[in-house]
């Protein structure tokens, strides 16, 4: 989780990722940021996030992104 937050901080700095739960719906992350994040995740964790998972529900908070990663890793 800490590594994920570090990645997020690099993409959009100065956000409290432990609290913010409107990353996509609040327009903090745009489509550019999301695909950059997916590539970062692939580099850091070796997990590929397929396109159908790129929804606001899965990316609205660091906790949700982490939960998605755990789900995809378990597959």
């Amino acid at each position: 989780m800490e590594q994920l937050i570090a990645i997020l901080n690099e993409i959009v700095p100065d956000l409290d990722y432990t609290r913010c739960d409107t990353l996509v719906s609040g327009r903090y992350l745009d489509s550019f940021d999301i695909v950059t994040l997916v590539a970062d995740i692939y580099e850091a964790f070796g997990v590929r996030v397929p396109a159908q998972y790129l929804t606001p529900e899965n990316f609205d908070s660091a906790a949700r992104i982490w939960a998605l990663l755990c789900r995809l890793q378990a597959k």
Partner: protein
Amino acid sequence: MPFASEIISFTSPLFLSFAVLVILLYYTVFRKLQWQFLLVASALYYACTGWQNCVYIVITIGSVYAAARFFGTDRGRKGKRIVFWLCLALQIGMLAYLKYISDRFPLGISFYTLQSLSYLIDSYREPTAERIETNPGKLALFVAFFPQLTQGPMARYSELKKTLYGGHAFSADAFTGGLARAAFGFFKKMVIADALMPLARAYCHGPAQIAVALLLYAAALYCDFTGGIDIALGLAQMLGIALPENFNRPYLAKSVAEFWRRWHMTMGAWFRDYVFMPLSVSAPFLKLSSWSRKTFKNKLGKRLPVYIATLLTWLLTGAWHGGNAWFLLWGLANGLIILLSQELEPLYRKFHTRFPRLRENKLYGAFQVVRCFVIMSLIRGINLAGVGFTPELTPALAWPQWILITLALLLVIFYRPPKRRLWRVCAAGAFIVAVLVFGVYGFGYDSAAFMYSRF
């Protein structure tokens, strides 16, 4: 203009008669068979474009329906993947052939193809009972619903099915809201857009007048496209059906990227969700990302695959608008400017850290809006070459007409849909009277075609 083709145009009296008849029968004779009736009405409407055109839309509906049903079976992943790619290639191949090679161009094919593809892709990704339509008639209505067929907005099946098939009791609120919206659409198209477009052409003579021409064209295009969408959304609303919004005050955008989040929103969202994102996170692009990070070892290395995906997406967006090189150039110009502003983002951030109050400054905000408007007008200049926008010599307007158009434009800028039912009816009445007095209409009158219906 022949009877059959006159009915197709939103602004023709025949279309209006057709729409009134559909609404009347929808809430009376066919109130228990509403979606089936809408399907028949949509089929009749489309048949008026020429029976040969119906072949293509039937192939699209049939193939997409069959493919999605196949995705819902227990067959293996490999077989589904083959069917998916074959069906995708069929839709794109048919669109490309009819758009770029054939002399025939079926009305609305660019719009209904993208809408069908969204259904195909969603049902392939998630083949659940909610995603897959088992009734071919219902799917046909989703693809061919007549108000949105010629210029959008492009809806997603998961959203539209919530209101398209349900029984709708007549609601005075929904009806008056839809009526006011449709009347506003007619006003924008027939009073403003049709008057401004020839003027924009007339002002295209000489470099000094180009700025005026671009300004007039921007206003005309906005009134033309949003007018058509207002008519579509208003008609659907009168039938109790909610279509997605397509505009959100685009000329108030402060950047090109923001402009595309406000203008033709359903098209932008389509290319984002079904081209840009899948391409950026595909296996080849992730491999390209690993390679570029190792090779360039800087921010550009990280961004390079995303930039390539952006440019490819914009090239495809250009190609969707038209087959000639101007449209590709237009798409590329949009993509390049968006990438440039991404690259300049750290500079903007430094600048705003140095001048923290500037973001709240209204004058600076106005500067950003004007800057974006100028950039978009310059990009639009490329698009004009694509659609063959040629200068015309039109007699100049007299000053009372200029005042009238200025007042009409101010009304468009400041108009807000009334909340009270009575005021909605009054607004609809006022717009209809304005169209009757100032617009051009009548049997045999060939109102200028909506700009976006040609795409």
